[in-house]
C-alpha cells in the first residue's frame, strides 16, 4: 500500500487515489496529425526509475496531483498540485 502525501489532505492511503498515468505527455494542438495523436494516446516511455504521474485524490479532495514515483522501489519523493512542476532526478 502506497502512502501518498496530498498537498491538501496530508498522507493518505493509495486506496483513496486513482492512478491517471504519465503526467509528462502533452496533448497535440488541434492541427496535430493522426500520428501525433496516436503518440499522445498510446506511446509511453515506461521508464525504469523516476516518473512523474497523475494521481487523483478521488475519495478525498478530488484534486489531480502530480506525483514523482520510482517505478521500481515505489518511493514517492514529491507531490504537487496540477499546475506545479516536478524535476525528475537522474535514474
Amino acid at each position, binding site marked *: 500500500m502506497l502512502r501518498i502525501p496530498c498537498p*491538501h*489532505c496530508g498522507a493518505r492511503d493509495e486506496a*483513496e487515489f486513482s492512478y491517471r498515468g504519465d503526467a509528462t505527455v502533452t496533448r497535440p494542438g488541434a492541427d496535430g496529425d493522426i500520428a501525433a495523436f496516436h503518440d499522445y494516446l498510446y506511446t509511453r516511455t515506461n521508464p525504469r526509475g523516476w516518473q512523474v504521474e497523475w494521481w487523483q485524490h478521488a*475519495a478525498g*479532495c478530488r*484534486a489531480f496531483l502530480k506525483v514523482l514515483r520510482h517505478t521500481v522501489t515505489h518511493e514517492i519523493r514529491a507531490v504537487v498540485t496540477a499546475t506545479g512542476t516536478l524535476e525528475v532526478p537522474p535514474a
Partner: protein
Amino acid sequence: MSAPEPTHPLAACATPGRHGAPGDAPLRVTLPRRDMVQVMARRGREDALAEAARAAFGLALPPAGQAAAAPDATAVWIQPGHWLFAAPRGMEGALAARAAAAFAGLAAVADQSHGRTTIAVSGPAARRVLARGCRLDLHPRAFGPGRAAATQIAHVGCLIHQTDEAPVFELTVFATLAEPFFHWLMEAGAQDGVLIE
C-alpha cells in the same frame, strides 16, 4: 398544497433502541436532519467569498481539513475552493436560496439536502468503532474538534467532521449509499453495542 416531508434515507433500517452486545458504553447514533449546500468559489473570487460568508453567515471559511461553526450554520472544507454548508433542516431550499443570494457572482451553489445525509456517532466507543473501517487516524493527537476529512469507509465516500471532544463525529454520506454504510456501522459497532436515538 405543501410538499410532503421527505422520508429519511435511513427510515427503513435505523430502528431506535439498543442493538448488538449489551454494555454500559454503547456507540450512540443520532440522525440530525440537515439542509446542506455545496459552495464552489468562482476562480479568483475566494477572498470576496470569504468576506461574504463572514457577512451573511458569521463564519470564517475554514482552510483544508477544517470546519467552522456559527450559531445557525457550519461550513466544512471539502476540496480546494469548495465548502459544504449545513444548517438544521428548514423550509425546502431555504439554505440554498440564502447561500445563492449571499454568494451571487462569487460562487456556484448546489443544494445537497436530498443528496447527502448525516449520521452522528458519539461516545467512548466512537473512535474504536470507526477504526474498524476508517483509514484515518482519529486519535486526539492526530484529529480533534473542528477537524474534518473526506475519505472512504467501507467503500463509501464519507465526510468526517469531529464536532466535539466527547467525541462526536458527524459522518456525511451520499443518501443513496446511506443504507449500506449504516449496515457497516451496525456491524462495526455490534461488539460494543449501539444505541440508536
